């Protein structure tokens, strides 16, 4: 304000009065014509501003509460799972005793319920699979993001994405019929054991870790890489010194999540590990894990034996929940670092503004006398010489940087192609063996006789029935919960708590979810082994996935679109329902389709909630046998491998179809967004 006269007189007067009364200049002074108006006061109404309509207000509040309730379902679910599993495991404390529960012997028929051998089995299997899978997955991700050409990268990462959706029962099947005989030849023995499980699990966690690591690498700005290259770094130096350190936390997250998947995996392990509940003797002798033992014993157990199984469920739950806790700690550290970085930046900015810049400019300005200038130049030349002299002290590396670079790039390339090749072999293997079985009779026929010859129609119907039912339950709740988290909730402890619950829910091993579903829906609610019980358990499994993708979809809607609607006088619900959700719809649909793909391939959850009898379900209370369990039983009994191959192929095709459809949806919406 250079010219006081130009300011409105009343404001100026006000400022003067304020200064006269000893108020600190610069305090906010309300213009007098606004001073007596607070929002929603009677006066505001008199001046022609309408108060909030009571009905609209009630409706908005009611909706917000509804959304909150949906979001809270995740918290309730986690609590219920934990409480119910503990409740059913209570005899472990009262009758078996913790001392014996954490003993070595697992022999339910003789009354010993020690789980340490199983726990060791789980740890052995997980550790080995991580040792094999993590380097391969990280190498593969680095190859795809940093080294491969765009086209190769696109094709291979699509394949990796698709393979992340292949159900575990198919990996187990692959391990059982192809890897097990190979390992039997190699080690002499049956081929069941930790080694086979390592290979199968390593293959399974590679897509998960690769995808997440690729996300972490992609989030690093291109400029950082360019800077490194422009300094004369080779590709390997750039990867090793700049990219990987910058992506460290993201990669740790990926590995921990991969670990969660490995430790909670049931079906694939069950099929190859040999299921001998003993302390592992060698890597090629049969062992057992917590998950596989639950799946194996649940069907016939009773009494204390069953309580012990629930106790194992609690142990698994605690392990997976603490892994989620670790991930959250790691990522919070990252967020805090970013926060403090921003705060730092703010501070710098203020300091810079506070400092009288003209003074600085004056000292560094070009007004130097010729003699000063000459001295400056001399100093500079010395500086150049000094830096060059120190640079010359650098020793040339023992191995040429180009050789190192070429070697490392070749290793990454190998990791990339090896992972791709393994995954391609699995698909080719299933397709090759399954195709001859494919026929309309196989798809639409009924299984006949003891060997289940003929078709698999009822299992297809059961699979689709339960999936559709689960989605009908899950999708509305998940979407409304996501609306709450993304649009209504204030970021704070409450939201953090709901997110933590959702993350924990998504990490619950599927066999634990199966146990819980059995205890609550099948037994306590009395739904029996039925589509409904299985669908409810599946819905809980899918809830966090759909919630997360929906929330991301909603957050991806640009803020200015919302502002546009608010600016026209829309209420919050109008903005959400008419602007935000429609814009986010393609991505939400993509998330739902992906979740459907996962639900179709889920085995352990439905194993003890849906039943295993072949039956064509009509009402939600009918039982049935889904394709995944059909495949597991056929492969495990080895009675009709033809049908097993056929079922595996059909299952894989269905899931690939869902995944491709999801990709199509998201690329369509991306194109639409790009075209605008």
């Amino acid at each position, binding site marked *: 304000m250079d010219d006081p006269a130009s300011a409105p007189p009343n404001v100026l007067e006000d400022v003067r009065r304020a200064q006269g009364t000893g108020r600190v200049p610069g305090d906010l002074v309300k213009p007098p014509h606004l001073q007596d108006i607070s929002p929603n006061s009677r006066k505001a109404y008199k001046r022609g501003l309408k108060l909030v309509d009571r009905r609209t207000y009630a409706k908005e509040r009611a909706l917000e509460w509804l959304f909150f309730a949906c979001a809270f379902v995740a918290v309730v679910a986690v609590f219920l799972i934990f409480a119910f599993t503990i409740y059913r495991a209570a005899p472990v404390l009262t009758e078996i005793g913790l001392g014996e529960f954490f003993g070595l012997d697992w022999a339910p028929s003789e009354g010993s319920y020690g789980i340490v051998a199983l726990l060791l089995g789980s740890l052995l299997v997980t550790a080995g699979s991580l040792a094999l899978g993590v380097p391969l997955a990280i190498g593969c991700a680095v190859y795809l993001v940093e080294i491969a050409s765009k086209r190769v990268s696109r094709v291979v990462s699509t394949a990796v994405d698709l393979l992340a959706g292949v159900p575990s029962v198919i990996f187990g099947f692959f391990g059982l019929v192809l890897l097990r005989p190979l390992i039997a030849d190699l080690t002499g023995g049956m081929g069941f054991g930790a080694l086979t499980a390592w290979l199968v699990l390593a293959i399974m966690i590679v897509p998960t870790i690769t995808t997440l690591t690729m996300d972490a690498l992609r989030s690093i700005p291109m400029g950082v890489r360019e*800077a490194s290259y*422009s*300094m004369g770094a080779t590709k390997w*130096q750039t990867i090793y010194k700049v990219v990987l350190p910058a992506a460290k936390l993201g990669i740790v997250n990926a590995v921990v999540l991969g670990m969660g998947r490995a430790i909670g995996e049931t079906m694939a392990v069950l099929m190859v590990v040999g299921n001998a509940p003993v302390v592992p003797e060698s890597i090629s002798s049969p062992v057992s894990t917590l998950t596989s033992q639950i799946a194996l014993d649940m069907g016939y157990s009773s009494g204390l034996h069953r309580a012990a199984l629930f106790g194992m469920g609690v142990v698994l739950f605690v392990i997976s929940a603490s892994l989620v806790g670790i991930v959250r700690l790691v990522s919070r550290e990252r967020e805090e670092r970013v926060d403090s970085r921003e705060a730092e930046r703010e501070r*710098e900015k203020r300091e810079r503004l506070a400092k009288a810049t003209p003074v600085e400019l004056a000292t560094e300005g070009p007004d130097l006398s010729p003699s000063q200038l000459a001295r400056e130049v001399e100093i*500079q030349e010395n*500086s150049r010489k000094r830096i060059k002299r*120190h*640079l010359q*002290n650098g020793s040339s590396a023992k191995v040429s940087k180009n050789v190192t670079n070429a070697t490392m790039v070749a290793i990454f390339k190998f990791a990339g192609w090896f992972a791709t090749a393994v995954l391609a072999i699995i698909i080719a293997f299933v397709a090759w063996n399954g195709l001859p079985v494919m026929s309309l009779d196989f798809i639409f026929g009924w299984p006949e006789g003891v060997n289940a010859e003929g078709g698999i129609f009822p299992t297809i119907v059961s699979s689709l029935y339960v999936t559709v039912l689960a989605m009908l339950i899950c999708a509305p709740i998940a979407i409304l919960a996501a609306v709450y988290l993304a649009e209504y909730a204030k970021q704070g402890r409450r939201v953090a708590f709901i997110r933590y619950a959702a993350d924990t829910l998504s990490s619950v091993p599927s066999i634990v979810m199966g146990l819980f579903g059995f205890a609550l829906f099948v037994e306590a609610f009395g739904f029996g082994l039925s589509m409904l019980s299985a669908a409810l358990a599946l819905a809980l499994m899918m809830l966090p996935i759909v919630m997360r993708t929906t929330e991301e979809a909603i957050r991806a809607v640009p803020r200015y679109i919302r502002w546009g609607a608010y600016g026209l006088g829309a209420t919050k619900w109008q903005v959400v329902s008419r602007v935000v959700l429609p814009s986010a719809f393609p991505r939400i649909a993509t998330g739902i389709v992906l979740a459907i793909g996962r639900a179709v391939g889920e085995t352990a959850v439905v194993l003890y909630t849906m039943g295993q009898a072949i039956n064509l379900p009509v009402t939600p209370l009918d039982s049935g046998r889904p394709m995944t369990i059909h495949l597991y039983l056929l492969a495990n009994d080895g009675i009709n491998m033809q049908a097993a191959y056929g079922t595996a192929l059909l299952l894989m095709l269905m899931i690939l179809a869902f995944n491709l459809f999801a990709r199509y949806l998201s690329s369509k919406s991306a194109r639409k967004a790009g075209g605008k």
Partner: protein
Amino acid sequence: MTAYRDAPMNEPGQGIHVEDFDFWYGDFHALTGVSLDLAQNKITSFIGPSGCGKSTFLRCINRMNDLIDGTRTSGLMELDGHDIYAEGVDPVDLRRRVGMIFQQPNPFPKSIYDNVAFGPRLQGVTAKDDLDAIVEESLKRANLWKEVANQLNKNGLALSGGQQQRLCIARVLAVQPDVLLMDEPCSAIDPTSVQKVEDLMAELAPEMTIIIVTHNMQQAARISDYMAFFLQEHAGEPATLIEYGVTGEIFSAPQDQRTEDYITGRFG
């Protein structure tokens, strides 16, 4: 045809010499027929409207475009008498001699010290004394030393935008390149910092060849000795060098009508 106005001529085998240079992104022919000598130890600015190929040409000088799939070149681009696109030339070594500053300040997510020591370490400098000396000297040269001397362990990203850009300059100075390419170095930082970076360029010019791409005509006039005007006349056709010569002369009396239209603000 390019109009030359007292354009610099290097001694044979000295500095950057370009003859009839063409560049393609895949099928897209981006640049054609560029011929010029870049004056040694002077500041040359590249100007022109968006998409005129000036940044592309700049990135050809240290082969940064190699990082993009499917790019190719024709013609001659020499540094001190050697064709930098000749078979077997190592772009990595080339980039150690031709440093680059980018539009967006891009410090590594590491400490200030590690940022500056990055280049020397690549060259095998490991002794702490040497590294300390180089870091201090380079930060002093970049006029950043006073501000960060007692917080060298702070993350480079915690600096303000202008400081980040000077950190990037210090990082380049630590390897003492002969040529410094600057791709709109001042478009993402605040005015005070712009002043500092421009002063710095003036100080550095006597010892290294500086080439700057800028959209800011005043800046080009203020700091550059020579100026090159690029233009893509028709969409789909390759861009080329329209006029090249002494900055003052081009501003006072452009030879080409298109140059005049651009610097008087009639398009672009």
